[in-house]
Protein backbone atom coordinates (compact mmCIF):
# COMPACT_ATOMS: atom_id res chain seq x y z
CA UNK A 1 0.00 0.00 0.00
CA UNK A 2 1.40 3.41 -0.92
CA UNK A 3 0.73 6.04 1.70
CA UNK A 4 1.00 9.61 0.47
CA UNK A 5 2.94 11.76 2.87
CA UNK A 6 1.52 14.67 4.79
CA UNK A 7 3.16 17.11 2.38
CA UNK A 8 1.15 15.95 -0.62
CA UNK A 9 -2.41 15.77 0.70
CA UNK A 10 -3.89 18.60 2.70
CA UNK A 11 -5.53 17.57 5.97
CA UNK A 12 -9.22 16.73 5.79
CA UNK A 13 -9.95 19.06 8.70
CA UNK A 14 -8.82 22.47 9.93
CA UNK A 15 -9.18 24.01 13.36
CA UNK A 16 -11.48 26.92 14.28
CA UNK A 17 -9.19 27.83 17.17
CA UNK A 18 -7.72 31.34 17.41
CA UNK A 19 -3.95 31.91 17.48
CA UNK A 20 -4.15 32.75 21.18
CA UNK A 21 -5.52 29.36 22.22
CA UNK A 22 -3.06 26.89 23.70
CA UNK A 23 -1.56 24.28 21.41
CA UNK A 24 0.20 21.02 22.17
CA UNK A 25 3.05 19.34 20.30
CA UNK A 26 3.15 15.60 19.95
CA UNK A 27 4.83 13.14 17.62
CA UNK A 28 3.23 10.96 14.97
CA UNK A 29 5.53 8.38 13.39
CA UNK A 30 8.56 10.50 14.29
CA UNK A 31 7.10 13.72 12.91
CA UNK A 32 6.16 16.56 15.24
CA UNK A 33 2.56 17.75 14.91
CA UNK A 34 0.61 20.40 16.79
CA UNK A 35 -3.04 20.60 17.76
CA UNK A 36 -5.19 22.63 20.18
CA UNK A 37 -4.92 21.57 23.80
CA UNK A 38 -7.66 19.25 25.02
CA UNK A 39 -8.56 17.63 21.72
CA UNK A 40 -8.46 13.86 21.16
CA UNK A 41 -5.55 12.12 19.48
CA UNK A 42 -7.93 11.31 16.61
CA UNK A 43 -8.79 14.97 16.13
CA UNK A 44 -5.13 15.96 16.31
CA UNK A 45 -4.15 13.43 13.67
CA UNK A 46 -7.04 14.39 11.37
CA UNK A 47 -6.13 18.07 11.70
CA UNK A 48 -2.64 17.14 10.54
CA UNK A 49 -3.50 14.83 7.66
CA UNK A 50 -2.08 11.73 9.34
CA UNK A 51 -4.42 9.12 7.84
CA UNK A 52 -4.36 6.18 7.62
CA UNK A 53 -4.18 5.60 11.37
CA UNK A 54 -3.58 1.91 10.94
CA UNK A 55 -3.66 -1.05 8.59
CA UNK A 56 -5.93 -3.96 9.46
CA UNK A 57 -4.69 -7.34 10.77
CA UNK A 58 -6.76 -9.27 8.22
CA UNK A 59 -5.88 -7.65 4.86
CA UNK A 60 -3.61 -4.71 5.77
CA UNK A 61 -6.33 -2.33 4.58
CA UNK A 62 -5.86 1.35 5.51
CA UNK A 63 -8.25 2.74 8.13
CA UNK A 64 -9.04 6.05 9.79
CA UNK A 65 -11.72 7.19 12.27
CA UNK A 66 -15.35 6.50 11.36
CA UNK A 67 -17.56 7.15 14.39
CA UNK A 68 -15.49 9.47 16.66
CA UNK A 69 -17.33 8.15 19.72
CA UNK A 70 -15.54 4.92 20.61
CA UNK A 71 -17.81 2.31 19.00
CA UNK A 72 -16.14 1.54 15.66
CA UNK A 73 -12.56 0.81 16.90
CA UNK A 74 -11.11 1.93 13.56
CA UNK A 75 -9.00 4.71 15.10
CA UNK A 76 -6.61 2.30 16.86
CA UNK A 77 -3.07 3.62 17.19
CA UNK A 78 -0.08 3.03 19.42
CA UNK A 79 0.17 5.73 22.09
CA UNK A 80 3.29 6.04 24.25
CA UNK A 81 4.24 2.44 23.53
CA UNK A 82 0.82 0.87 24.16
CA UNK A 83 -0.83 -0.46 21.00
CA UNK A 84 -4.51 -0.75 20.12
CA UNK A 85 -5.63 2.43 21.84
CA UNK A 86 -8.71 4.27 20.65
CA UNK A 87 -7.43 7.64 19.47
CA UNK A 88 -10.90 9.25 19.66
CA UNK A 89 -11.14 8.55 23.39
CA UNK A 90 -7.65 9.72 24.36
CA UNK A 91 -6.89 13.42 24.91
CA UNK A 92 -3.51 14.64 23.63
CA UNK A 93 -0.68 15.55 25.97
CA UNK A 94 2.52 17.45 25.35
CA UNK A 95 5.25 15.10 24.14
CA UNK A 96 2.92 12.18 23.46
CA UNK A 97 4.37 9.63 21.03
CA UNK A 98 1.83 8.21 18.62
CA UNK A 99 2.58 5.59 15.99
CA UNK A 100 0.59 4.18 13.12
CA UNK A 101 -0.35 0.56 13.82
CA UNK A 102 0.42 -2.03 11.16
CA UNK A 103 -1.78 -5.10 11.52
CA UNK A 104 -2.13 -6.75 14.89
CA UNK A 105 -0.46 -5.12 17.84
CA UNK A 106 2.89 -6.35 19.02
CA UNK A 107 3.71 -7.06 22.63
CA UNK A 108 6.15 -4.59 24.15
CA UNK A 109 8.85 -7.25 24.36
CA UNK A 110 8.42 -8.25 20.72
CA UNK A 111 9.50 -4.83 19.65
CA UNK A 112 12.73 -5.34 21.57
CA UNK A 113 13.33 -8.53 19.59
CA UNK A 114 12.73 -11.13 22.29
CA UNK A 115 11.80 -14.65 21.31
CA UNK A 116 9.02 -16.33 23.28
CA UNK A 117 9.25 -19.89 22.19
CA UNK A 118 9.24 -19.63 18.44
Amino acid at each position, binding site marked *: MHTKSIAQISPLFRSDSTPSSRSVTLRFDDRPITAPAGVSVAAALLLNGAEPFRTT*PVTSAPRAPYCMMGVCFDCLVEIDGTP*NRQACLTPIREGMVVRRQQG*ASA*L*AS*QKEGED*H*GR
Partner: protein
Amino acid sequence: MQAEELIVVGGGVVGAAIAYGAARAGVYVTLLDQGDIAHRASRGNFGLAWVQGKGVGLPCYARWTRDAVKFLPALAKELFELTGVDVALSQPGGFWVGFNDAEMVAREEMLRKLNTTVGNIPYEMLDHTALKARLPAIGPAVAGGSYCPLDGHTNPLKLLHALHAGLTAHGARVVSGVDIAHVSYRGKSNDFEVKSASGQSWRAPRIVLAAGLGNKDLAAQVGLHAPVSPNRGQVLITERLKPFLDYPVNKVRQTNEGSVQLGYSVEDVGLNDGTTVSAIEWIARRAVATFPVLSNVRLVRAWGALRVMTPDGFPIYQESASCPGAFVATSHSGITLAGAHAYVIGPWMAGLGAPPDDLNEYAGERFLDPTRSFSNAH
Protein backbone atom coordinates in the same frame (compact mmCIF):
# COMPACT_ATOMS: atom_id res chain seq x y z
CA MET B 1 -40.92 -39.15 5.86
CA GLN B 2 -38.04 -40.76 4.06
CA ALA B 3 -35.95 -43.84 4.62
CA GLU B 4 -32.42 -42.79 5.54
CA GLU B 5 -29.41 -44.98 6.17
CA LEU B 6 -27.99 -43.19 9.21
CA ILE B 7 -29.39 -40.30 11.22
CA VAL B 8 -27.08 -38.37 13.49
CA VAL B 9 -28.81 -36.23 16.08
CA GLY B 10 -26.57 -33.28 17.01
CA GLY B 11 -24.35 -31.17 14.80
CA GLY B 12 -21.67 -30.24 17.30
CA VAL B 13 -18.11 -31.37 16.83
CA VAL B 14 -18.86 -34.89 18.09
CA GLY B 15 -21.92 -35.44 15.88
CA ALA B 16 -20.37 -33.71 12.89
CA ALA B 17 -17.19 -35.80 13.08
CA ILE B 18 -19.14 -39.04 13.35
CA ALA B 19 -21.45 -38.01 10.52
CA TYR B 20 -18.45 -37.00 8.43
CA GLY B 21 -16.77 -40.34 9.01
CA ALA B 22 -19.91 -42.24 8.04
CA ALA B 23 -20.56 -40.13 4.96
CA ARG B 24 -16.96 -40.49 3.89
CA ALA B 25 -17.32 -44.26 4.15
CA GLY B 26 -20.18 -44.11 1.68
CA VAL B 27 -23.26 -44.07 3.92
CA TYR B 28 -26.14 -41.70 3.25
CA VAL B 29 -26.25 -39.57 6.40
CA THR B 30 -28.80 -37.08 7.65
CA LEU B 31 -27.51 -34.75 10.35
CA LEU B 32 -30.17 -33.05 12.48
CA ASP B 33 -28.99 -29.89 14.18
CA GLN B 34 -30.49 -27.30 16.54
CA GLY B 35 -30.54 -23.61 15.76
CA ASP B 36 -28.54 -20.50 16.50
CA ILE B 37 -29.03 -20.49 20.26
CA ALA B 38 -28.32 -24.15 21.02
CA HIS B 39 -26.07 -24.75 24.03
CA ARG B 40 -23.31 -25.61 21.59
CA ALA B 41 -20.47 -26.92 23.70
CA SER B 42 -18.51 -26.88 20.45
CA ARG B 43 -18.57 -23.10 20.34
CA GLY B 44 -17.07 -22.90 23.80
CA ASN B 45 -14.27 -25.34 23.20
CA PHE B 46 -10.76 -24.25 24.07
CA GLY B 47 -9.21 -25.86 20.99
CA LEU B 48 -6.60 -28.08 22.60
CA ALA B 49 -5.74 -31.46 21.06
CA TRP B 50 -4.37 -32.76 24.31
CA VAL B 51 -2.85 -36.04 25.40
CA GLN B 52 -0.86 -35.39 28.56
CA GLY B 53 -2.75 -36.09 31.74
CA LYS B 54 -5.64 -37.87 30.02
CA GLY B 55 -6.90 -41.24 31.20
CA VAL B 56 -6.05 -41.22 34.86
CA GLY B 57 -8.05 -44.18 36.20
CA LEU B 58 -8.90 -45.56 32.76
CA PRO B 59 -5.79 -46.63 30.87
CA CYS B 60 -7.69 -47.57 27.70
CA TYR B 61 -8.83 -43.96 27.44
CA ALA B 62 -5.24 -42.75 27.65
CA ARG B 63 -4.45 -45.11 24.76
CA TRP B 64 -7.53 -43.99 22.83
CA THR B 65 -6.48 -40.34 23.21
CA ARG B 66 -2.82 -41.00 22.36
CA ASP B 67 -3.86 -42.76 19.15
CA ALA B 68 -6.62 -40.30 18.31
CA VAL B 69 -4.34 -37.28 17.90
CA LYS B 70 -2.36 -39.18 15.28
CA PHE B 71 -5.42 -39.03 13.02
CA LEU B 72 -5.65 -35.25 13.15
CA PRO B 73 -3.09 -34.32 10.48
CA ALA B 74 -4.80 -36.56 7.93
CA LEU B 75 -8.22 -35.24 8.87
CA ALA B 76 -7.05 -31.63 8.65
CA LYS B 77 -5.45 -32.18 5.26
CA GLU B 78 -8.44 -34.03 3.89
CA LEU B 79 -10.88 -31.38 5.09
CA PHE B 80 -8.78 -28.63 3.58
CA GLU B 81 -8.63 -30.35 0.20
CA LEU B 82 -12.34 -31.08 0.27
CA THR B 83 -13.68 -27.78 1.61
CA GLY B 84 -10.93 -25.16 1.44
CA VAL B 85 -11.28 -24.55 5.18
CA ASP B 86 -7.97 -24.59 7.05
CA VAL B 87 -8.53 -25.79 10.61
CA ALA B 88 -5.11 -24.41 11.66
CA LEU B 89 -3.93 -27.63 13.27
CA SER B 90 -0.57 -27.34 14.99
CA GLN B 91 0.99 -30.15 17.02
CA PRO B 92 4.35 -28.90 18.28
CA GLY B 93 3.87 -30.40 21.70
CA GLY B 94 2.30 -28.62 24.63
CA PHE B 95 3.02 -27.47 28.15
CA TRP B 96 1.22 -27.71 31.45
CA VAL B 97 2.44 -25.14 34.02
CA GLY B 98 2.47 -25.38 37.79
CA PHE B 99 2.80 -22.66 40.38
CA ASN B 100 4.17 -24.53 43.37
CA ASP B 101 6.17 -27.60 44.30
CA ALA B 102 3.22 -29.63 45.51
CA GLU B 103 1.54 -29.27 42.11
CA MET B 104 4.76 -30.24 40.36
CA VAL B 105 5.27 -33.34 42.46
CA ALA B 106 1.67 -34.48 41.94
CA ARG B 107 1.94 -33.84 38.22
CA GLU B 108 5.13 -35.84 37.81
CA GLU B 109 3.67 -38.74 39.76
CA MET B 110 0.53 -38.76 37.62
CA LEU B 111 2.36 -38.62 34.30
CA ARG B 112 4.86 -41.25 35.35
CA LYS B 113 2.09 -43.63 36.34
CA LEU B 114 0.23 -43.07 33.07
CA ASN B 115 3.31 -43.68 30.98
CA THR B 116 4.18 -46.82 32.92
CA THR B 117 0.68 -48.26 32.66
CA VAL B 118 -0.06 -47.31 29.08
CA GLY B 119 3.28 -46.74 27.45
CA ASN B 120 4.31 -44.42 24.66
CA ILE B 121 3.02 -41.27 26.26
CA PRO B 122 6.30 -39.38 26.55
CA TYR B 123 6.64 -36.40 28.85
CA GLU B 124 9.31 -34.17 30.31
CA MET B 125 9.21 -32.44 33.66
CA LEU B 126 10.85 -29.03 33.57
CA ASP B 127 11.84 -26.82 36.46
CA HIS B 128 11.54 -23.06 36.13
CA THR B 129 14.93 -22.63 34.46
CA ALA B 130 14.40 -25.45 31.98
CA LEU B 131 10.91 -24.17 31.19
CA LYS B 132 12.18 -20.66 30.68
CA ALA B 133 14.66 -21.95 28.14
CA ARG B 134 11.73 -23.26 26.09
CA LEU B 135 9.23 -20.47 26.82
CA PRO B 136 11.27 -17.34 27.52
CA ALA B 137 8.16 -15.30 28.33
CA ILE B 138 7.25 -17.51 31.29
CA GLY B 139 6.83 -15.50 34.47
CA PRO B 140 8.81 -15.77 37.71
CA ALA B 141 5.80 -17.14 39.62
CA VAL B 142 5.74 -20.30 37.51
CA ALA B 143 7.42 -23.14 39.39
CA GLY B 144 7.84 -25.33 36.34
CA GLY B 145 5.88 -27.48 33.95
CA SER B 146 5.47 -30.65 31.99
CA TYR B 147 5.90 -31.01 28.22
CA CYS B 148 4.40 -33.67 25.98
CA PRO B 149 5.45 -33.80 22.33
CA LEU B 150 2.09 -35.28 21.29
CA ASP B 151 0.04 -32.23 22.32
CA GLY B 152 -1.25 -29.55 20.00
CA HIS B 153 -4.16 -27.26 19.19
CA THR B 154 -6.49 -26.32 16.40
CA ASN B 155 -9.22 -23.79 15.65
CA PRO B 156 -12.35 -25.45 17.02
CA LEU B 157 -14.78 -23.23 15.11
CA LYS B 158 -12.98 -23.82 11.84
CA LEU B 159 -12.97 -27.54 12.55
CA LEU B 160 -16.74 -27.49 13.06
CA HIS B 161 -17.24 -25.44 9.91
CA ALA B 162 -14.95 -27.77 7.93
CA LEU B 163 -16.74 -30.88 9.14
CA HIS B 164 -20.11 -29.40 8.16
CA ALA B 165 -18.85 -28.39 4.76
CA GLY B 166 -17.13 -31.77 4.41
CA LEU B 167 -20.27 -33.74 5.23
CA THR B 168 -22.18 -31.85 2.62
CA ALA B 169 -19.40 -32.43 0.11
CA HIS B 170 -19.68 -36.17 0.76
CA GLY B 171 -23.39 -36.08 0.05
CA ALA B 172 -24.76 -35.94 3.59
CA ARG B 173 -27.86 -33.88 4.32
CA VAL B 174 -27.76 -31.29 7.10
CA VAL B 175 -31.09 -30.15 8.51
CA SER B 176 -30.72 -27.07 10.72
CA GLY B 177 -33.03 -25.52 13.22
CA VAL B 178 -34.67 -28.71 14.44
CA ASP B 179 -35.10 -29.65 18.06
CA ILE B 180 -35.33 -33.44 18.38
CA ALA B 181 -37.66 -34.45 21.17
CA HIS B 182 -38.55 -38.09 20.50
CA VAL B 183 -36.77 -41.16 19.30
CA SER B 184 -38.59 -44.44 19.03
CA TYR B 185 -37.67 -47.92 17.98
CA ARG B 186 -40.07 -49.70 15.67
CA GLY B 187 -39.01 -53.26 16.46
CA LYS B 188 -41.01 -54.93 13.71
CA SER B 189 -39.38 -53.00 10.88
CA ASN B 190 -36.09 -52.71 12.70
CA ASP B 191 -35.86 -49.02 12.30
CA PHE B 192 -36.10 -45.83 14.27
CA GLU B 193 -38.30 -42.79 14.04
CA VAL B 194 -36.83 -39.47 15.06
CA LYS B 195 -39.31 -36.65 15.68
CA SER B 196 -38.73 -32.95 16.18
CA ALA B 197 -40.63 -30.76 18.62
CA SER B 198 -42.42 -29.19 15.67
CA GLY B 199 -43.62 -32.54 14.35
CA GLN B 200 -41.21 -33.29 11.50
CA SER B 201 -39.91 -36.84 11.43
CA TRP B 202 -37.25 -39.00 9.83
CA ARG B 203 -36.69 -42.76 9.75
CA ALA B 204 -33.55 -44.84 9.50
CA PRO B 205 -32.27 -48.28 10.49
CA ARG B 206 -29.42 -46.69 12.45
CA ILE B 207 -29.28 -43.58 14.61
CA VAL B 208 -26.50 -41.89 16.52
CA LEU B 209 -27.36 -39.69 19.48
CA ALA B 210 -24.67 -37.03 19.68
CA ALA B 211 -26.86 -34.31 21.10
CA GLY B 212 -24.65 -33.20 23.97
CA LEU B 213 -26.74 -32.36 27.01
CA GLY B 214 -29.81 -33.51 25.12
CA ASN B 215 -28.43 -37.04 25.08
CA LYS B 216 -29.62 -37.76 28.59
CA ASP B 217 -33.30 -37.72 27.65
CA LEU B 218 -32.93 -39.10 24.15
CA ALA B 219 -30.70 -42.01 25.18
CA ALA B 220 -33.25 -43.17 27.74
CA GLN B 221 -35.84 -43.44 24.98
CA VAL B 222 -33.82 -46.18 23.27
CA GLY B 223 -32.63 -48.15 26.26
CA LEU B 224 -29.33 -46.35 26.77
CA HIS B 225 -28.05 -44.67 29.90
CA ALA B 226 -26.19 -41.40 29.35
CA PRO B 227 -26.20 -39.38 32.56
CA VAL B 228 -24.49 -36.28 31.21
CA SER B 229 -24.63 -32.99 33.03
CA PRO B 230 -23.42 -29.48 32.29
CA ASN B 231 -20.12 -28.22 33.58
CA ARG B 232 -19.37 -24.57 32.92
CA GLY B 233 -16.00 -23.39 31.70
CA GLN B 234 -15.39 -19.67 31.41
CA VAL B 235 -12.89 -18.63 28.76
CA LEU B 236 -11.36 -15.27 27.83
CA ILE B 237 -10.13 -14.07 24.47
CA THR B 238 -7.86 -11.10 23.85
CA GLU B 239 -7.32 -8.69 20.99
CA ARG B 240 -5.23 -9.93 18.08
CA LEU B 241 -1.48 -9.91 18.65
CA LYS B 242 1.47 -10.58 16.40
CA PRO B 243 2.56 -14.22 16.89
CA PHE B 244 4.49 -14.66 20.12
CA LEU B 245 3.56 -18.13 21.43
CA ASP B 246 3.93 -21.18 19.22
CA TYR B 247 3.26 -23.81 21.86
CA PRO B 248 -0.14 -24.32 23.46
CA VAL B 249 -0.08 -24.20 27.23
CA ASN B 250 -2.89 -25.92 29.13
CA LYS B 251 -4.64 -22.64 29.95
CA VAL B 252 -3.11 -20.25 27.43
CA ARG B 253 -2.95 -20.60 23.68
CA GLN B 254 -2.45 -18.16 20.86
CA THR B 255 -4.92 -18.81 18.05
CA ASN B 256 -3.98 -18.76 14.39
CA GLU B 257 -5.65 -15.34 14.14
CA GLY B 258 -3.32 -13.97 16.79
CA SER B 259 -5.76 -13.59 19.64
CA VAL B 260 -4.86 -15.30 22.90
CA GLN B 261 -7.35 -17.66 24.47
CA LEU B 262 -7.18 -17.98 28.24
CA GLY B 263 -8.88 -20.42 30.50
CA TYR B 264 -10.71 -21.70 32.34
CA SER B 265 -13.04 -22.37 35.15
CA VAL B 266 -14.67 -25.67 36.06
CA GLU B 267 -18.04 -24.98 37.66
CA ASP B 268 -21.17 -26.86 38.52
CA VAL B 269 -23.89 -24.27 37.90
CA GLY B 270 -26.54 -26.08 35.91
CA LEU B 271 -27.43 -24.61 32.54
CA ASN B 272 -26.00 -21.17 33.31
CA ASP B 273 -23.54 -20.22 30.58
CA GLY B 274 -23.01 -16.71 31.87
CA THR B 275 -19.75 -15.23 33.08
CA THR B 276 -18.74 -14.07 36.53
CA VAL B 277 -16.47 -11.19 37.34
CA SER B 278 -14.59 -13.33 39.87
CA ALA B 279 -13.76 -16.03 37.29
CA ILE B 280 -12.75 -13.42 34.72
CA GLU B 281 -10.41 -11.79 37.22
CA TRP B 282 -9.01 -15.15 38.34
CA ILE B 283 -8.27 -16.24 34.78
CA ALA B 284 -6.64 -12.87 34.08
CA ARG B 285 -4.45 -13.17 37.18
CA ARG B 286 -3.35 -16.63 36.17
CA ALA B 287 -2.62 -15.48 32.62
CA VAL B 288 -0.49 -12.57 33.81
CA ALA B 289 1.33 -14.83 36.30
CA THR B 290 2.07 -17.30 33.49
CA PHE B 291 3.12 -14.70 30.90
CA PRO B 292 3.68 -11.26 32.43
CA VAL B 293 3.94 -9.72 28.93
CA LEU B 294 0.19 -10.23 28.65
CA SER B 295 -0.41 -7.57 31.28
CA ASN B 296 -1.02 -4.78 28.76
CA VAL B 297 -3.09 -6.90 26.42
CA ARG B 298 -6.80 -6.19 26.14
CA LEU B 299 -9.59 -8.63 26.86
CA VAL B 300 -12.17 -8.47 24.09
CA ARG B 301 -14.66 -11.07 25.24
CA ALA B 302 -15.38 -13.55 28.01
CA TRP B 303 -17.85 -16.38 27.73
CA GLY B 304 -19.10 -19.42 29.52
CA ALA B 305 -19.57 -22.71 27.74
CA LEU B 306 -21.31 -25.77 29.05
CA ARG B 307 -19.13 -28.84 28.75
CA VAL B 308 -21.01 -32.09 28.44
CA MET B 309 -19.71 -34.14 31.35
CA THR B 310 -20.24 -37.72 32.34
CA PRO B 311 -19.77 -38.51 36.04
CA ASP B 312 -16.23 -39.85 35.46
CA GLY B 313 -15.36 -37.48 32.61
CA PHE B 314 -14.80 -40.34 30.17
CA PRO B 315 -16.82 -40.92 26.99
CA ILE B 316 -19.88 -43.06 26.45
CA TYR B 317 -19.80 -44.98 23.16
CA GLN B 318 -22.43 -47.68 23.09
CA GLU B 319 -24.94 -49.53 20.98
CA SER B 320 -28.28 -50.16 22.61
CA ALA B 321 -28.94 -53.82 23.45
CA SER B 322 -32.72 -53.44 23.54
CA CYS B 323 -32.83 -51.28 20.39
CA PRO B 324 -30.00 -52.48 18.18
CA GLY B 325 -28.97 -49.85 15.66
CA ALA B 326 -29.26 -47.00 18.18
CA PHE B 327 -25.97 -45.57 19.36
CA VAL B 328 -24.98 -42.90 21.82
CA ALA B 329 -21.75 -40.90 21.66
CA THR B 330 -20.68 -38.33 24.19
CA SER B 331 -17.29 -36.89 25.03
CA HIS B 332 -16.13 -33.53 26.33
CA SER B 333 -12.90 -33.82 24.32
CA GLY B 334 -14.52 -33.46 20.94
CA ILE B 335 -11.55 -31.69 19.42
CA THR B 336 -8.80 -34.02 20.62
CA LEU B 337 -10.83 -37.04 19.55
CA ALA B 338 -12.23 -35.61 16.29
CA GLY B 339 -10.06 -37.86 14.13
CA ALA B 340 -10.97 -40.97 16.08
CA HIS B 341 -14.64 -39.99 15.92
CA ALA B 342 -14.41 -39.57 12.17
CA TYR B 343 -12.27 -42.56 11.25
CA VAL B 344 -13.29 -45.14 13.87
CA ILE B 345 -16.56 -44.23 15.60
CA GLY B 346 -18.34 -43.01 12.45
CA PRO B 347 -17.73 -46.15 10.36
CA TRP B 348 -18.42 -48.43 13.35
CA MET B 349 -21.77 -46.79 14.11
CA ALA B 350 -22.64 -46.92 10.40
CA GLY B 351 -22.04 -50.67 10.43
CA LEU B 352 -18.91 -50.53 8.32
CA GLY B 353 -16.08 -50.90 10.79
CA ALA B 354 -14.92 -52.41 14.03
CA PRO B 355 -15.76 -50.73 17.33
CA PRO B 356 -13.01 -49.02 19.35
CA ASP B 357 -10.86 -51.22 21.56
CA ASP B 358 -12.22 -51.82 25.05
CA LEU B 359 -15.70 -50.73 23.95
CA ASN B 360 -17.28 -52.22 27.06
CA GLU B 361 -15.34 -49.72 29.23
CA TYR B 362 -17.30 -46.91 27.61
CA ALA B 363 -20.77 -48.29 28.37
CA GLY B 364 -23.21 -46.02 30.17
CA GLU B 365 -24.23 -48.73 32.62
CA ARG B 366 -20.96 -48.26 34.47
CA PHE B 367 -22.60 -45.31 36.20
CA LEU B 368 -25.28 -47.57 37.65
CA ASP B 369 -22.75 -49.63 39.63
CA PRO B 370 -23.44 -48.83 43.31
CA THR B 371 -19.97 -49.96 44.33
CA ARG B 372 -18.22 -47.27 42.31
CA SER B 373 -17.87 -43.56 42.91
CA PHE B 374 -17.02 -41.04 40.25
CA SER B 375 -15.18 -37.80 39.87
CA ASN B 376 -14.75 -35.91 36.66
CA ALA B 377 -12.08 -33.48 37.83
CA HIS B 378 -9.61 -33.25 34.98
